[in-house]
């Protein structure tokens, strides 16, 4: 039920929900509850870039979701990249490995990965599954260090984790 709300897709396609689809939706939704430093955008209509490393079906789902969407005047776009280094100019980066975090250190990029361990290693948001539902873990310190403000509304829903 919850997934179908998020995707707004016809029931026929919503009948095959996967965690990947939900995660794709969350990647887009983060842009509405996160504030980047003003320097992250060249101008008022610069795009919000969501970079996905080692893109698989998650990238496809994301492309469907963000088509024609804008947040605060910024169009939302996705980019498939091969490693973290390529995600340096992006606003959101979905990483498949916590070891790549160091590459993005010092950049105002919201780092998203898998598991609570990802946030303990210095990632900002990590997906984990509890009671068959996708939950969020947030390392607020890491976000603040990168100049990114996460909405208290989002923080309230998440498990806060202390890490590097």
């Amino acid at each position: 039920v919850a997934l179908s709300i998020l995707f707004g897709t016809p029931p026929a396609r919503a009948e095959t929900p996967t965690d990947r689809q939900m995660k794709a939706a969350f990647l887009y939704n983060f842009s509405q509850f996160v504030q980047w430093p003003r320097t992250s955008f060249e101008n008022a209509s610069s795009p919000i870039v969501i970079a996905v490393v080692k893109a698989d079906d998650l990238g496809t789902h994301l492309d469907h979701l963000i088509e024609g969407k804008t947040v605060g005047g910024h169009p939302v776009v996705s980019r498939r990249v091969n490693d973290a280094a390529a995600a340096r100019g992006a606003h959101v980066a979905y990483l498949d490995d916590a070891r790549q975090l160091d590459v993005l250190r010092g950049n105002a990029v919201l780092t998203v990965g898998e598991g609570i361990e990802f946030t303990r290693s210095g990632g900002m948001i990590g997906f984990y599954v509890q009671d068959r539902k996708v939950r969020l873990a947030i390392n607020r310190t890491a976000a603040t260090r990168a100049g990114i403000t996460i909405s208290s509304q989002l923080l309230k829903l998440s498990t806060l984790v202390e890490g590097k």
Partner: protein
Amino acid sequence: VKPHLLDRLSLRTKLTAIMCLTLAVSLGLAYAVLMFLVREYARSVVERRLSILASVIDVNAQAPLAFVDAAAADATLGSLRADDAVLAAWVQGRDGKIFSSYRSPRFTEPFATLDEGNHGLTTDGDQVRIVRPMVANEDRLGTLAIVSDLSGANAVLHRYAWIIALVMGGSSVCATLLWARLQSGIMTRLSRLSQTVDYVAVHSDFGARAQAGGADEVGQLISGFNRMLDEIQQRHAEVGKRTDELAALNAELDARVTERTAELNASNKELEAFSYSVAHDLRAPLRHIDGFADLLARHLDKSLDDKGRRYLNTIGAAAKDMGLLVDHLLVYSRMGKTELKKTETPLDPLVAEVRQVVDRGQDGRSITWNVEALPAVVVDPEMMRQVFTNLLSNAVKYTRNVAEAVIEVRCRAVESDQWEFTVSDNGAGFDMQFADKLFGVFQRLHSTSEFEGTGIGLANVRRIIARHGGRTWAVGTVNQGASFHFTLPRSKG
């Protein structure tokens, strides 16, 4: 014109009714307007609170909706439990399905499906509902609906209804008391004036006065009425005074008339007594003069020459004339004194008898008599015989020099209760300027040598007719004849 119901009421009742009506209408209008305003205000308060609630819930439910955390959304909506007025709230996702909801025990209806058409505030009976889209940035996440009841607003409305009603009741009482106090100043004076008017009309007491007061129209009315009474009272007093004066004058006049009449009667009686005794006492010496003149003539018979005899005859004739005069005077005097012996007297035989006596003295004169049928009257018959004897003998006497004498006796009814008798002739007649003298004692219009007589007959006629309650008068022309008229009452007495 049919009198209006209002016209039959007293002025005080009428004014009070008008006042009450005015008060009721104006207060009723004010009450309606105030209650409308209070209702609108209470509703707007409820609606604004509902809008604020919806904004807060919206902000707090967006993240749970975006990240599919129904438990968090339920907790947010559940916080509405703190507000008694909120009946229910629900969040509908983009797919049209209910994502989260809250329901108070009082709300038993199913959650309605929300669409673009019913955004905003709608009121349905005792419930007011707000529907707003949940938008994060430009992205539509879902729709929020909150339903609240208007019991709070209605409670406010109730409270204000009572307060306003109490205030208006209080001001009505105040206005009524004020009215009673203010109008009594006018009405009391007016009813006092009205009572005074009634009193004056019923008792004709122009000394009464309405109690004055106030410089307004009522005051002017009262003082005007009082001034009018002053005037009337003054006139009334004057009229009374004049009437009294007049009455006094009349009484004085009456007294004077009575006095004079008594004096007149007394002197009349004295005069009559005097003349009767004089006449009576004159008869004896006259008889002596006549008798001794006769004796002297016989005594001197041979020695008396013709001259002496003529002198003695003249003395005797003069004494006889004087005796006749005295006799007539005594008769006249008796006419005034003897009691009337009235009886029903038919005049026809009486006049015929008198005519025979009068006729007998005539030596072959030709007289035409026209005597009408005469009625019977209640009179003294002897006196009435005197009247007709005088009138008929006069008529015969004064037609002596007429070749064809005509004497008429007529009678007609006049003035409904009188007979008028007329004895007329075609004889010597008289000059009308002496008409009144005819009926005087010893008054004569002709010399004794022309027509003999003592001049007392008509005086007797007038006296007798007057004693019977009638009048006498005469109409005549010199050498054309005369007519003598007298009246007698037709009724008895």
